[in-house]
């Protein structure tokens, strides 16, 4: 019986030569494909100074940032990345544009394409939005998923992979724990797929049951409800942002109680391996999911993540454009 599958969905982001022409999800990509993204990102980092270099790979190309959800950080890093590749950047403020006047998403895309965009960088509140947009745009436009609902945030996941590779070493030796609001997290899902493909020894998620999706262990992760067990022998601990609106709802009683049970503190880090590395996709809520002394401490890679974010987005933008050109 015919149906589209996860494989088909991932296939949508590849050209006939199996190279990226969109970047929608880390799921379904091969180890070589993920490694190519990491290697390309490394090539934009000066090996001596660690600074991000400029490469005019996208001169004459137009990158359109379509953010249907507010974002400052991700949008800014995409903008910086595009400019370092010499692309022209247009930021479309969707809240002021026509979807609020009842125009369908598809009609809006066609209008924007007519303005000769080469790349759409898309953030949208609905899971599957980036897939939908990639299935609707003309073949020459590359779509980069900057976060869709709870589904995927592949560039964040890849910058986290680059951070891990540069600072924690070979994936095969690593136990990685992802902590907090797994249910609503597109970051967690994209990280899990990437870590699995890159060969991490063990992937754990730690969360209360209200923040765990159903049957999540079937994804090949070990599920823990308590930090003491979940952090034992962990090499990398990734704390997720917990949105304020989750607090004092049916999902969590208060930020204090969440911090007491799941906050990444110096005390709780003692359960993990000595020298455990700490990451967070940002923006961080100090005193909610992480203690300031941990976020700012010697084991924290949080600011490195931001820097690598630019290199990874440069890599993804340039690889997708190459994939589009090969396709033509």
């Amino acid at each position, binding site marked *: *019986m*015919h*149906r*589209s*599958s*996860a494989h*088909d*969905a991932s296939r949508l982001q590849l050209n006939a030569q199996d190279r990226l022409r969109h970047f929608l999800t880390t*799921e379904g990509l091969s180890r070589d494909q993920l490694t190519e993204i990491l290697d390309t990102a490394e090539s934009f980092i000066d090996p001596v100074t660690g600074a991000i270099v400029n490469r005019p790979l996208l001169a004459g190309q137009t990158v359109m940032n379509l953010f249907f959800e507010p974002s400052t950080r991700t949008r800014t890093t995409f903008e910086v990345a595009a400019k370092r590749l010499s692309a022209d950047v247009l930021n479309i403020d969707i809240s002021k544009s026509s979807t609020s006047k009842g125009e*369908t*998403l*598809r009609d809006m895309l066609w209008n924007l394409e007519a303005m000769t965009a080469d790349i759409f960088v898309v953030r*949208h509140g*609905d*899971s*599957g*939005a980036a*897939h*939908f947009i990639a299935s*609707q745009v003309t073949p020459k436009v590359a779509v980069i998923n900057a976060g*869709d*609902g*709870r*589904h*995927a945030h592949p560039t964040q996941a890849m910058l986290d992979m680059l951070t891990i590779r540069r600072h924690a070493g070979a994936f095969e030796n690593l136990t990685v724990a992802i902590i907090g609001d797994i249910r609503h997290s*597109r970051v967690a*899902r994209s990280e899990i797929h990437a870590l699995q493909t890159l060969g991490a020894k063990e992937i754990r998620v730690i969360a209360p049951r209200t923040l765990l*999706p*159903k*049957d*999540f262990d*079937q*994804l090949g992760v070990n599920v823990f409800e308590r930090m003491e067990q979940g952090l034992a022998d962990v090499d990398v601990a990734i704390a997720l942002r917990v949105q304020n609106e989750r607090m004092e709802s049916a999902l969590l009683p208060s930020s204090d109680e969440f911090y007491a049970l799941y906050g990444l503190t110096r005390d709780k880090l003692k359960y993990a391996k000595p020298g455990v590395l700490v990451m967070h996709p940002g923006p961080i809520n100090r005193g909610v999911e992480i203690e300031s002394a941990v976020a700012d401490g010697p084991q924290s890679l949080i600011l490195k993540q931001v820097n690598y974010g630019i290199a990874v987005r440069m890599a993804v933008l340039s690889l997708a454009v190459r994939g589009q050109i090969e396709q033509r």
Partner: protein
Amino acid sequence: MAVRIDNVRLIDPAAGHDAVTSVILENGRMMIGGSGVAAAEIIDGSGLWLTPGFVDLCARLREPGAKMHGGAASETRAARAGGFLHLVVPPDTQPVLDSGALVTQLCERADAAGYAKVYPVGALTKGLEGKALSNMNRLRLAGAVAVGNARAPFASVETALHCLEYAATLGLTVFFSPEEPSLAKGCAHDGFTAARMGLPGIPDTAETIALATQLLLVEQTGVKAHFGQLSCRGSVELIRIAKEKGIPVTADVAMHHLHLTDAAIDGFNSFAHVRPPLRSNEDRAALREGVKTGVIDAICSDHQPLDASAKLAPFPATEPGMSTLETVLPLGLQLVREGVLSESQLIAALTCKPGDVLGIERNTGWLLIDPLVSWTVSGETLLSTGKNTPWLGQTLQGLVRRVFN
């Protein structure tokens, strides 16, 4: 004029017939044998089946409503092509079927088109708001075959109780599509597929909690009740227990829930976005077993034609629903080939058993079916305005060759 069909396999479960024979059909009436009757046309029925016309317990015609999705004429025409000559229409039209005039008008529109007979379910509450009783007697007199609240919630259990008491007073059957709204805010079965794709889930308890409540109220009031489009194992279990207790209930399942699981939504396939959602393998197996054992009486189409634009959006933003009237027969035949149902079990679940739910007379017209012919589901082959089916592009087996009524 009389038509004679020779060597045809007559499958008429209500009459206990399943044999190759010759029949005479005249003015929608069927007679076995009939060698003495002069026939204007003689058909060689070798390899073909003759069955009663199908009865669908849930099909949306989109009338009254948005014309771009369909209408009484286009959808009854599609129904006839799929073998359905009798269609129960839920009251969640726009405007809702809460007045006698709208019920009468819908029946007249379908009669004028002349393809299939329509049996509207009147709204149980005014505007389907779940608050105030509708004028059920007016609805009944106008032609409503039952009353129901479609998928709309009741304001309170107390309101639901009074609705059932009043419907019982009038001897009306109540149609339920059980759903607890606070648990049904998602867009996919709450299982691993939705968890992986980051789609908000709808647990099976969204259905079973509402069903259990409604069954208790049915038991309390003694109203005749039908539960439609059940989607999960827990619901089959609850209906089985209710029937064992002698509560007057019947149930149906949509054909697509007997075939597809939540795996079909993978890749954000919006054609597989339906309500209730496609569920697990375990649920599908229990639904199949339910039809086989008779706990579930009937198979419906749950036809919901949609304009192409309704499915062109990110998955959670698409409208749920499948256009199904024309694929029920081939999908049913597939269940027979897979050994899930016998030929007569399938035909009974599409004819006399849903007919008994409505209490309509046995003579429902006749279908000459070619069970083996292959055809490809496409925008061109489907007569429905809605081309929203996950079987688009696939080749299925089985087609209605002719209708006699």
